[in-house]
């Protein structure tokens, strides 16, 4: 099946001569129809620029964007059959909600009756029918968010773009709206690209995630891929909270590894004598008094559902997840047992994942 959105070799440079900044360095992403793709990364990684290029609000320096098979570079944004939800919602302040939702249809000269029907339909879907006569300034943050989505939905576009739409909401509202967006996507099935810096949003909403840093695509995969088989140490520490523990090891003769002198029986794909970084998520380490890897408890963080214990070892601080009823105290000597099956190995110098 042809992809709905095909990003091919997109590069974007700003500035001239010596002051050229390469914001996007050759991005290739395929999005299947109906997929919910997340672009996630820290500020400045280029995700918003990429979104703007897809939308047609900016042009790439190189590369093509194929929508439904045709290259849309050079096609004005309004003609790409795309709708976008902005971080600040960008609702038209002097128009009421109904006119906001119907504006794009008005621009396309859709007859009034048809427009009204569509507005009512969308308002019902988003439960904002009672707000149709109000102005944006009279709405709460969550209501504005819905109107912004309504405006995008009314277009019945081929592609939905979201530019950090939940960043301006408080935590509780964010969780509600996240579920709302997921529900709407399941109902409408429209291909979507969603930009965020929040890794929880990325994990919960996406069917596939593209992790970006400094204009380079770090990894493109399902949430499971990204979480359990991160492509490099950056992805490993970006996704997951608390972050994955990274520990320096050296491969010994016979297949075992040494962690700063302590020998552990863990198979490592690197060559004998080489250094490798071992990645372990807090839930894949157990407190076991008999384990050879020892440390001293430094901080205990109960969150209610779990307790995170930060253990100070010769290899650095290691965070371990334990069940909430386990009693541990700062200063206690503990042992750390590792689940080999879930270990990730990375090249010590490049940070790239080592194939098992």
């Amino acid at each position, binding site marked *: 099946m042809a992809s709905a959105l095909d990003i091919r070799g997109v590069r974007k440079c700003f500035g001239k001569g010596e002051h050229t900044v390469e914001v996007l360095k050759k991005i290739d992403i395929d999005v299947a129809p109906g997929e919910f793709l997340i672009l996630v990364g820290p500020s400045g990684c280029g995700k918003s620029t990429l979104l703007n290029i897809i939308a047609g*609000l900016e042009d790439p320096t190189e590369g093509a964007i194929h929508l439904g098979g045709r290259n849309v570079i050079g096609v*004005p944004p309004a003609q790409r059959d795309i709708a976008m939800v902005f971080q600040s919602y960008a609702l038209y*302040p*002097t*128009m009421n909600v109904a006119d906001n939702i119907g504006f*794009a249809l008005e621009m396309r000269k859709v007859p009034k009756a048809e427009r009204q029907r569509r507005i009512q339909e969308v308002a019902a879907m988003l439960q904002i029918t009672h707000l149709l006569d109000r102005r944006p300034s009279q709405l709460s943050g969550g209501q504005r968010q819905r109107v912004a989505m309504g405006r995008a939905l009314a277009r019945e576009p081929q592609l939905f773009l979201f530019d950090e739409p939940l960043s301006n909401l408080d935590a509780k509202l964010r969780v509600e709206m996240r579920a709302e967006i997921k529900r709407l996507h399941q109902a409408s099935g429209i291909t979507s690209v969603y930009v965020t810096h929040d890794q929880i949003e990325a994990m919960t909403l996406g069917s596939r995630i593209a992790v970006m840093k400094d204009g380079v695509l770090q990894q493109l995969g399902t949430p499971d891929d990204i979480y359990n088989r991160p492509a490099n140490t950056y992805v490993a520490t970006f996704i997951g909270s608390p972050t994955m523990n990274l520990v320096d090891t050296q491969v010994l003769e016979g297949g075992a590894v040494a962690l700063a002198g302590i020998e552990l029986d863990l198979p490592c794909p690197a060559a004998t004598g080489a250094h490798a970084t071992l990645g372990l998520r807090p839930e894949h380490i157990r407190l076991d008094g008999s384990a050879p890897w020892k440390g001293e408890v430094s901080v205990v963080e109960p969150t209610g559902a779990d307790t995170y214990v930060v253990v100070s070892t010769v290899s650095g601080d290691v965070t371990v997840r334990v069940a909430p009823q386990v009693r541990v105290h700062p200063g206690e000597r503990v042992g750390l047992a590792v689940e080999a099956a879930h270990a990730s190995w990375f090249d010590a110098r490049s940070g790239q994942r080592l194939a098992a």
Partner: protein
Amino acid sequence: MTAKPLSHHVARVLLMGVLLLGAAFFLAPLYVMVVTSLKDADELRNGNLLSLPGSLNVSAWREAWSSACTGADCSGLRPFFWNSVWMAIPAVLISTAWGALNGYVLSLWKFKGSETFFGLLLFGVFMPFQVVLLPMSQVLGWLGISSSIGGLILVHCLAGLPSTTLFFRNYYAAVPGELLNAARLDGAGFWQIFLRIILPMSTPIVMVTLIWQFTQIWNDFLFGVAFSGADSKPVTVGLNNLANTTSSVKAYNVDMAAALIAALPTVAVYVLAGRYFVRGLTAGAVKG
């Protein structure tokens, strides 16, 4: 709550005293003008600046309006007043609309060189108009509109261009970029964005510009005296002629009445819409 010491109360009284003294300083000339305009010749001779008239005598006002001499003619300020009206209203409307369009382009549709152009235009806010007087009178002559109200309207539109453009451009610079992106995505073009989105948001700045321009244009004297002919002199020129005619007896009551008539429109605008006026002043001076 602790009681405030006596020194505090004394200080407050002193404060109000000084402020009221200031108010008196600013109001005194107005008082003098009104009071003088209501006196007759005897009261002028015998009284002083602050003395009240015996009765509310409006004959000076009548004279100032319709029969005072302003040089060769003796038909009062009335013809000049109407000249100002026919000059000011079109000039204010045109310069404001033009400024809005320019401000819109310069803030939201920037292109290569547009910022430089704006910087160059900005000098026009400060430039002494003496430097354009001679060339302008030549051009007006060529166009056949020298000594006419049309000529004055043209000059005021050109002279007001930098200020009005500045006001709108700074106001529109605060429009969020995402709003424009949303409009572009929705399919709105240059004119639709201006008419459907930007203009409806512009009420405050339109008010400020209209009031500022009206005040500047109505109160102008330099262009009025340099570029007007017998039938097109604005009220400021009329007033100056009236107050400076070397006729037999100086009738200060008529002079004051005439000054008040000339001042009436802009003071009325100030009283009714003062806060926009203040915003215009502070916006104009705090550039950028």
